Every structure is written in structure tokens, then in C-alpha cells.
């Protein structure tokens, strides 16, 4: 409760006040201001970017892609994760995903986008106040031409903002898999707010902001790493942070003593399928246009997911005698994670190889967990941390000029550009370092300030009743 008073209320008031204020004297951004951001942060240059007018086709694709990525968090991820916990915690997991959709969206509009994509702040390290409260983001119509400003390539910048917002939401939601079934809801909220501000925003800036030091689209980047759709920003960062969470928060009561099987694999399967579908928005949408690059990403993404499904379930079949549906679903997600950084940089046939590797490697990673004995409840690290890292590396290997419009030079190792492997490695290292250190510091602090875990009593009763005063299923 103290927390709520100390935190929730002020936030609300703050928002209302500033929202209002921002609204009141929100100046129509000068077209110049918009021009400054004509090149897209993510991914290689796109022929369309030359033309400044709004393309209805690209806009349509980006609107639906934004919706698809939101759908990934809920119902997608919410179902995928909630099916894996025990019945008494099913709502706990769903609530984490759903509530984050609420709070993080507001944060992104207020300052997140500005910190991540602003170019007026701390150079290649972090954005500034440029876009606070969506200042200079929302569309206006120039008096003279009637053209829309500001644009981001062929789409209104506001769509780029909301599309990136969906990434900002799902990334911390992925971490829920590590501390599931035992974390205090209040601490979870505060942790996520801090993490997304202090870890996600900087990392997104490094990799995707026009002046980010890891942005392959930034000519001046120190280490131009390929991260088409967020392998480092989304998956490595969340996966590594998940590992730290699992280590610091400790095991669930009864872990490794009593069985803790997934309570509803039908949900997990539906969730995985929705993630698969949504991922088309995540990866193909990262072309920021409805073009051939998006088509390449779409195909590569789908084939990697398919190959991952076959690889993981196949590995189980060979090594254990039975392919499981959880294996098939996990393999699909692993494949999707692994292709994320390379979707727009590799040939789709390589996507099959990447997917196969992802399925087998992540399968082994999840098996290893038992040996190390940490309790990454839903394998957020095993799938996103390991898969994301593998993907970043394999992207360096398989990247090819063939799929990049206008690219003349060799891209990946297989084309002889071994230098790219260094960039990829640096990108991975940076994401791991920032994620691990940031999470470590935040959790240590919060543990001291408000405690990470619910009481033993509450944990035994389940998060649904103890944290939210509800039951998931009442079938009587």
C-alpha cells in the first residue's frame, strides 16, 4: 500500500498535469525538425526513403504490424507463459503482461521514445528531451503543401513511435518468465519501470537511433552491428536480465522436490501460434515499409520458426523417444528469436539453418538449466538469452548483400566480411553487459527497499489470490 500511495497516485497526477500541459502548448513541429529524422533508425537504407510523401500502402502495413506486435504481448505471450505455470498463478502471469501493456505505453509516450530515439541528448549514448510528451511526433499538415509532417520515411513518425512502443512493452514482459510464480507484483512494476528506462531506452538508442554507436544504418557508428528487428535490444537484453532475476530471486518453494508441470499446455500452444503470427509484424514490420525487404524478412522469419519447431521436437524425438508439443512450441519461439536480428539481412534458406540451430541449441540450454540449478521458471534465458545471442552471431555469418536493396559490399562472414563478426560480438557484449549490470543493481536495491518475493504463505496460496484477490478458474 505505501507503495501505491508513494508511487501510483503521483504518477497519475503527474501524467494528467503534464499531459494537459503538453497538450495545451504543443507546437506544430517545423518541417525542418521532421527532416532531421528522415532516415529510419532500424535496418539498412530503403529506396522509398528518398520520397517524402506518405505511402498509404506502407502506412497500412505499419499500422497492422503495430497491432500484431501488441498482440504478441497479450494474448500471445500472456497465454504462452500462463499455460506453463501452475493453476494458482495463472492470473499472476497474465496480469504482469497485461498491466505492463498499460503502464509502459504511457511511459513511452511521456519520455521513453524521446530517450530512445531522440538525437538531441547524449550523442550516441542516449536521447534527450526532443520528443517528450510526443512533442514533434504527432502528424500535422503543412499549410502550404498539405503534406503530413513529421514523416519517418514514407510513414508518419507517429506510427514509428507507436510501433516501437510495442517493442518497449514486450521486452520487459519477456522477463516475467524468469521470476514467475513468486515475485511481488508491486516490486515487479517498479522494477520494470526502472529497467525499461535505464536498460531498454539506452540500448535501443545504441542500436536504432540515427546516431547510435551500434546502428548499422548510422555511417558514423563505432561498431555497426546488424540487428534488424531487435535480437540484441529485445531478446539478449531480456534474456540476460531474466537469468540475473532467476539467480537473485531464488527458486520457487518446492522447486525440484514436487512436480511443477505446466497447468495448461493448450494455452501455451495457442500463445506460441499467436507469437508466430505476431512475429511477422515484429520482423517484417521492421522494414518500416511494405516492400521487398519486408517480404524477405517475412519469409525468413516463417522458415526459421518452422525449422525451429522441427529441430526441437525432432531432437526430443531422437533423444527421448517422443516429440512433445511444448517442444514444438518452444522450438518455434526459439527459431523466431534467433532469426530476429537477421530477418532483413539473410537469405530465407539460411533462415532454415538458423532455425534448426536455434531449436537444437536452445533445447540443450533448457536441459542444462537443471544442472546449474537456478530456477528460470519458464526458460526466458534459455530461449531468449541463448537464442538471441546465437542469432546475433549467425546473422554475422549469413548476412548477404543479395537481400539488401542497393548494398554493394559484402555483408557477412559467408561473403568474406569477417569484420562484421566483431561488430556482432560487440553488440552482443554491450547488450549482455548493460542488461546484466542494470538488472543486478536494480534488484539488489529493490530487494533492500521493498523486497522481491511474496511471503511464503502467499506463494503457497498462489499469486492469483494473494496478489490480485482473484481465482483463474472456478469450474464448480
Amino acid at each position: 500500500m505505501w507503495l501505491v500511495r508513494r508511487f501510483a497516485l503521483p504518477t497519475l497526477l503527474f501524467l494528467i498535469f503534464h499531459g494537459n500541459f503538453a497538450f495545451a502548448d504543443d507546437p506544430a513541429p517545423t518541417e525542418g525538425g521532421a527532416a532531421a529524422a528522415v532516415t529510419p533508425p532500424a535496418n539498412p537504407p530503403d529506396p522509398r526513403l528518398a520520397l517524402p510523401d506518405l505511402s498509404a500502402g506502407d502506412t497500412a502495413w505499419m499500422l497492422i504490424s503495430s497491432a500484431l506486435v501488441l498482440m504478441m504481448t497479450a494474448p500471445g505471450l500472456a497465454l504462452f507463459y500462463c499455460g506453463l505455470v501452475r493453476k494458482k498463478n495463472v492470473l499472476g502471469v497474465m496480469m504482469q503482461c497485461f498491466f505492463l501493456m498499460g503502464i509502459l505505453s504511457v511511459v513511452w509516450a511521456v519520455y521513453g521514445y524521446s530517450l530512445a530515439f531522440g538525437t538531441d541528448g547524449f550523442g550516441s549514448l542516449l536521447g534527450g528531451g526532443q520528443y517528450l510528451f510526443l512533442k514533434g511526433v504527432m502528424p500535422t499538415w503543412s499549410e502550404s503543401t498539405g503534406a503530413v509532417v513529421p514523416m519517418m520515411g514514407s510513414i508518419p513518425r507517429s506510427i514509428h513511435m507507436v510501433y516501437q512502443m510495442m517493442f518497449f512493452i514486450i521486452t520487459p514482459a519477456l522477463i516475467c518468465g524468469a521470476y514467475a510464480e513468486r515475485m511481488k507484483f508491486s516490486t515487479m512494476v517498479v522494477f520494470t519501470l526502472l529497467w525499461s528506462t535505464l536498460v531498454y531506452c539506452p540500448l535501443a538508442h545504441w542500436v536504432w537511433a540515427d546516431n547510435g554507436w551500434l546502428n548499422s544504418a548510422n555511417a558514423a557508428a563505432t561498431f555497426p552491428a546488424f540487428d534488424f528487428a531487435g535480437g540484441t535490444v529485445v531478446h539478449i537484453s531480456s534474456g540476460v536480465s531474466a537469468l540475473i532475476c532467476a539467480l537473485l530471486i531464488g527458486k520457487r518453494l518446492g522447486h525440484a522436490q514436487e512436480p511443477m508441470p505446466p497447468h495448461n499446455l493448450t494455452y501455451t500452444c495457442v500463445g506460441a501460434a499467436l507469437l508466430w503470427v505476431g512475429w511477422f509484424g515484429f520482423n517484417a514490420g521492421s522494414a518500416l515499409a511494405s516492400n521487398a525487404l519486408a517480404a524477405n524478412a517475412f519469409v525468413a522469419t516463417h522458415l526459421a520458426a518452422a525449422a525451429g519447431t522441427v529441430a526441437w521436437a525432432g531432437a526430443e524425438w531422437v533423444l527421448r523417444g517422443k516429440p512433445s508439443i511444448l517442444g514444438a512450441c518452444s522450438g518455434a519461439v526459439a527459431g523466431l528469436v534467433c532469426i530476429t536480428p537477421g530477418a532483413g539481412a539473410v537469405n530465407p534458406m539460411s533462415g532454415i539453418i538458423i532455425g534448426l540451430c536455434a531449436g537444437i541449441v536452445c533445447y540443450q540450454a533448457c536441459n542444462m538449466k537443471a544442472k546449474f540449478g537456478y530456477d528460470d521458471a519458464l526458460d526466458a534465458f534459455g530461449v531468449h538469452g541463448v537464442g538471441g545471442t546465437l542469432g546475433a552471431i549467425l546473422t554475422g555469418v549469413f548476412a548477404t548483400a543479395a537481400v539488401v536493396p542497393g548494398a554493394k559490399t559484402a555483408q557477412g562472414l559467408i561473403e568474406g566480411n569477417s569484420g562484421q563478426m566483431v561488430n556482432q560480438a560487440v553488440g552482443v557484449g554491450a547488450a549482455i553487459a548493460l542488461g546484466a549490470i542494470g538488472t543486478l543493481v536494480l534488484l539488489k536495491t529493490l530487494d533492500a527497499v521493498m523486497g522481491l518475493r511474496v511471503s511464503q504463505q502467499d506463494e503457497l496460496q498462489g499469486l492469483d489470490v494473494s496478489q490480485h484477490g482473484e481465482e483463474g478458474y472456478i469450474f464448480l
Partner: protein
Amino acid sequence: MKKIEAVIRHYKLEDVKNALTGAGVDGMTVTEVRGFGRQRGHKEMYRGAEYTVDFLPKVKLEIVVPDKMVRDAVDTIIRVARTGQIGDGKIFVTDLSEVIRIRTGETGEEAL
């Protein structure tokens, strides 16, 4: 008055019910239970974790009958529910001191 409790296999329920009604039993109460015994459980695997499930789904019938019908009822159950495989289940018989039908307040055999 006796209460017969029989733990049997799921898919035998229909047959047993029909056989019993054939044998003149007017009613019974059924509960979903999980049973542990000689019958070996099965393995389940979820990613890294592997569990042996040794509580197996069974159904428990509770049948209250007049003393004179017990033999019949029990034999019927044995006959129909038996597969010969481990796990067919058990029958327990207990004495009842009283039986009442809520609707009418009738007691004893009339209550059945």
C-alpha cells in the same frame, strides 16, 4: 444397509453403471479420483524436467444397497470392471447406520 465403494477404470464406468442398474441398483454417486497402487505410472517430460506420474485417474462409485443386494452388486462390478490388467481397482464395503432421502425424509430401504 451397506455402502459399496468401488474404484474402477474410467472407461468402464458406462458398462458398470448399466450392469448395476440391470442388477436392480437404483442409484449411485460417482467421484473423479486419482489412484496410487501397483499399477505403474507414466513419465511426462516438460522441457528440462521429467516427472513420473503415479497418481492415475480413476473413478470411484459409491453405491448404497440393502444388505441382501451386496453380493450381487459386488459380483456385477467385478465381472464388468475386470480387464485382468493391474489397475482394475478395488471394492470396499462399509456398514451404514442410517440412510435418508432428503426429498421425502424416508429412511432405510425406502430411501433408496
